[in-house]
């Protein structure tokens, strides 16, 4: 019997993995081959998806990318570890793109059956919770603080400090919420994790509940992720049946109930207070801070809001110890960063590495340059509110502070690559347009400013009052920057200004000096 793995991940399926699986079953049956088909998550090497793996002893060997039309030929050539088929990639763990990573959070992704608790445990899962159950709340918070873990949702706030605040705020009812809104374009790490290793998020949230004395948790999941929803629903039911969620978890006397709430297509609901409003069943209007959600959050009660990857990382911190986690990284950015290589990239996917590598290393060494084969011109890092970096900045180390120093941000780790066909005026315009579409509408600089921004950029593009409008645009950016209530309006100027600063020629259309398209 041959054991075959084919991911059921969104991207793998978007590339045809379901059809490949069906074809494998059909062709195997035709040939009287005995195969066991397992649907794992993805390892995140999306450039190789659909990735077909076979198990041989302790090892797994891969073929990819495998399309439905390749299956018959693969079976005829024989699915074995010394295949000479052109799609044969060798031992999975020897694929350099994967072996060069330091996978802490994504160590199980693509390896295990996402819904097998046994496999999760076999690969170190629930070791963190076991340890946490033997610790006091204060000790758990201390471990998280000592690990140096900072929020992976974008703002990079120290997680331990946030948890300490919730722990120290007295209340009969506290909440743990996972921010799974993952709205940034160019990002998919939360999705990948939830589809490939959902128990890790559940474990992290449970540890958090123990640490802050919460009994109820919510995962706020964007509606754009139907597969993640399916997997999480099943995982929660499995965890409940195994007494890892619900009342009296593992006989500890502690309760933690977990529910999923699905968003409804609003980018702003990723902002933590907007997310809380949405969880309360309201419009996602951003709240004034203070009060902090840690003190007055969901339904007015102390609430932890953390990104999916932050909560997932906590299970590693507890299982392996704060020092182990802290040992990775650079400067004040500790642990690993889950970079998502996307856009016009040859080898796109999830690259988990310690903070500190340069953007160039990532895009060139891991990414292999553009998919189009043309030169890279601009790289947008950190989602739609992040800066566009020109080549002169590609040696910036991936580290929160280093990025801030060059007027950029790491955000949730999205790295979007553009080739030399990119028109940076269009990109700046889109930043403003996106803000206009997704603004919650609470404050004027964001709501009105973004609409004005689009108009100004359109005029500049038509060489209509160019220099005056460029000045107005800069003034508008300043107003949005200082006058917006949250980072939606406050950071939209970041991509716009970076485009203006580093790619000025793109804003000189019609003047005879610029780049004409």
């Amino acid at each position, binding site marked *: 019997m041959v054991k075959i793995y084919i991911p059921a991940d*969104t*991207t793998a*399926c*978007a*590339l045809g993995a379901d059809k490949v699986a069906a074809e494998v079953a059909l062709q195997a049956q035709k040939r009287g081959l005995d195969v066991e088909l397992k649907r794992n998550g993805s390892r995140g090497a*999306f*450039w190789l*998806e659909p990735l077909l793996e076979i198990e041989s002893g302790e090892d797994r060997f891969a073929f990819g990318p495998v399309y439905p039309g390749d299956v018959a030929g693969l079976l005829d050539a024989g699915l074995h570890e010394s295949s000479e088929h052109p799609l044969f990639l060798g031992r999975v763990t020897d694929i350099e793109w994967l072996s060069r990573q330091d996978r802490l959070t994504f160590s199980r992704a693509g390896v295990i059956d996402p819904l097998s608790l046994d496999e999760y445990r076999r690969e170190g899962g629930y070791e963190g919770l076991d340890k946490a159950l033997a610790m006091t709340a204060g000790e758990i918070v201390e471990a998280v603080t000592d690990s140096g873990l900072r929020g992976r949702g974008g703002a990079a706030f120290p997680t331990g400090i946030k948890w300490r605040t919730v722990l120290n705020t007295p209340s009969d009812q506290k909440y743990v919420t996972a921010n799974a809104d*993952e*709205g*940034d*374009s*160019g*990002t*998919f790490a939360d*999705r*990948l994790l939830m589809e490939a290793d959902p128990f890790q998020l559940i474990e992290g949230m449970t540890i958090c509940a123990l640490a802050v004395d919460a009994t109820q948790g919510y995962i706020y999941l964007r*509606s*754009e*992720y*139907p597969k993640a929803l399916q997997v999480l629903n099943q995982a929660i039911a499995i965890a409940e049946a195994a007494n890892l969620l619900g009342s009296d978890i593992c006989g500890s006397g502690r309760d933690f109930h977990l529910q999923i*709430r*699905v*968003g*409804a*297509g*609003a*980018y702003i609901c990723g902002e933590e207070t907007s997310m809380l409003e*949405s*969880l*309360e*069943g*309201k*419009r*996602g209007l951003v709240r004034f801070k203070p009060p902090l959600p840690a003190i007055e959050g969901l*339904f007015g009660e102390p609430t932890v809001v953390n990104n999916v990857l932050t909560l997932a990382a906590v299970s590693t911190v507890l299982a392996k110890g704060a020092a182990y986690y802290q040992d990775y990284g650079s400067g004040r950015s500790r642990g690993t960063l889950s970079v*998502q*290589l*996307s*856009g*016009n*990239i040859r080898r*796109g*996917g999830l690259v988990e590495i310690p903070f500190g590598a340069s953007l160039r290393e990532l895009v060139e060494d891991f990414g292999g340059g553009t*998919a*189009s084969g043309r030169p890279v011109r601009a790289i*947008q890092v950190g989602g*739609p509110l992040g800066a566009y970096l020109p080549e002169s900045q590609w040696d910036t180390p991936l580290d929160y502070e280093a990025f801030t120093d060059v007027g950029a941000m790491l955000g949730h780790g*999205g790295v*979007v*690559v*553009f*080739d030399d066909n*990119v028109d940076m005026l*269009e*990109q700046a315009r*889109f930043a403003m347009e*996106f803000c206009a*579409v*997704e603004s919650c509408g609470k404050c004027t600089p964001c709501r009105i400013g973004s609409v004005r921004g689009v108009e100004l950029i359109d005029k500049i593009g038509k060489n209509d009052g160019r220099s005056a409008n460029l000045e107005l645009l800069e003034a508008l950016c300043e107003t949005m920057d200082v006058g917006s209530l949250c980072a939606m309006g406050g950071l939209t100027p970041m991509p716009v200004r970076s485009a203006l600063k580093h790619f000025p020629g793109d804003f000189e259309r019609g003047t005879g000096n610029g780049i004409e398209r």
Partner: protein
Amino acid sequence: MHSSGEAPAVIVSSAVRKFADTPGGLLPLLHEIQAGLGFIPSDSVVTIASGMGLSRAEVHGVISFYHDFRDKPGGQKTIHVCRAEACQAVGSRQLEAHVKTRLGVDYGETTVDGRFTLEPVYCLGNCACGPSVRIADDVFARVDADRFDELLGDI
């Protein structure tokens, strides 16, 4: 898509009953109605409001705030084209133009045969393999104009 055979009023009132006691239950309630009826009829707002102890303005405000909720029927399937940056980097602007011409509609509109409603989406989490398109609950990768036409043919 009106997927269950039940009368709209029944679907609305049973959804209201189901979520009346759920803290912050309005969003799951609206999702349930939309899943059953394909949209949230404006005459259901009164029922929802009274069942959830909210004002009609509050319910209406929520329906109009979120891009997912529609107050008019859409086509049998919704086609979402990703407009966000990672897809732009691999040609989604051209794809977008093609899709609009091919379907003969703009965003927010339904094709004359009632089969498809076209909507924009800002990222589907498939950013390493764009341009991305979602048709109902299926996401498709590396969709160019030809691939899009092929997908339409397959439906």
